[in-house]
């Protein structure tokens, strides 16, 4: 996904990096804490992200893009990660439509890293954090040392 040699376990630098990703900017992503294998980021509701104009609900693909970015950030910030990483696989379960007008917030945790693969899970919520909008599990590459 990105060269993170100087972003490892460093929230401020990881945030700087994601601030320069053009597609993250296009989606309007804002970044919370990114450190120690966990990442928090938000995607404010916007008309251009809508998938169903009848209801104003954000497109599933936009939620996927948020999840992919958040999972990647969690992996990059993991203390055992030293080099660049890329998404191998990502599965997203959509529990319910995000409430139109509300910011979607994603939290990702890189919970296990081997010599070859990093494992991540994530959850996305709107204002009603008790009922997740979506969950994701992902696998990411670990570059050879």
């Amino acid at each position, binding site marked *: *996904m990105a060269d993170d040699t100087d972003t490892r376990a460093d929230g401020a630098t990881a945030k700087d990096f994601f601030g320069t990703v053009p597609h*993250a900017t296009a989606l309007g992503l804002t970044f919370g804490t990114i450190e120690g294998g966990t990442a928090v980021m938000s995607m404010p509701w916007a008309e251009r992200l809508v998938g169903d*104009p009848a209801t104003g609900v954000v497109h599933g693909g936009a939620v996927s*893009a948020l999840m*992919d970015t958040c999972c990647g950030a969690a992996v990059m910030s993991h203390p055992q990660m030293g080099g660049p990483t890329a998404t*191998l696989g990502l*599965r997203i379960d*959509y529990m319910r439509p995000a409430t139109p007008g509300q910011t979607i917030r994603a939290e990702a945790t890189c919970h296990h890293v081997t010599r070859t693969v990093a494992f991540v899970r994530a959850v996305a919520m709107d204002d009603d954090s008790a009922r997740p909008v979506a969950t994701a599990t992902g696998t990411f590459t670990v570059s050879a040392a």
Partner: protein
Amino acid sequence: MTARRAAPEPVEVTRQRRDQALATLVAGVPYITFLGVRFERRGDELTAIMPYASSLIGNPAPAALHGGATAAFLEMTAIISLGWAMLWPRIEGGGQAPGAAPALPKTIDFTIDYLRAGLPRDAYARARVTRVGRRYASVQSEAWQDNRDRPIAQAAGHFLMPPGDG
């Protein structure tokens, strides 16, 4: 005098009806416009095209498409292809193309395999509807760039069919 069979429909009429129906299906979705994705039709086969734009970049150097953009591209290809498969018998069964955009299926789950880095150039995708039931459908989709035999990503998902449309 025997009644003569009606002359076949002029091809312009057929083409116009089909293109109109596809445009109605796609036009209503702002996120498709945001990604710059458009759909080309040959008969009932759809190909989605995501022209390269700098806003799709996820990694500045070396430049690569954002995995989220690829995921979204595959998901909208799956949804539109499924919606199109539902619409086709209606417009070809002697009925009229619906004036308003028909309700689209909703994603239940979506799984993406990233096979190769997305290069900073145009991407294409097609979907295959492998099952349509009254409530659930299964769809596979695949995206490629320069070489059809070297896909950059493949995906599979389950979708919830709109009520009353089975």
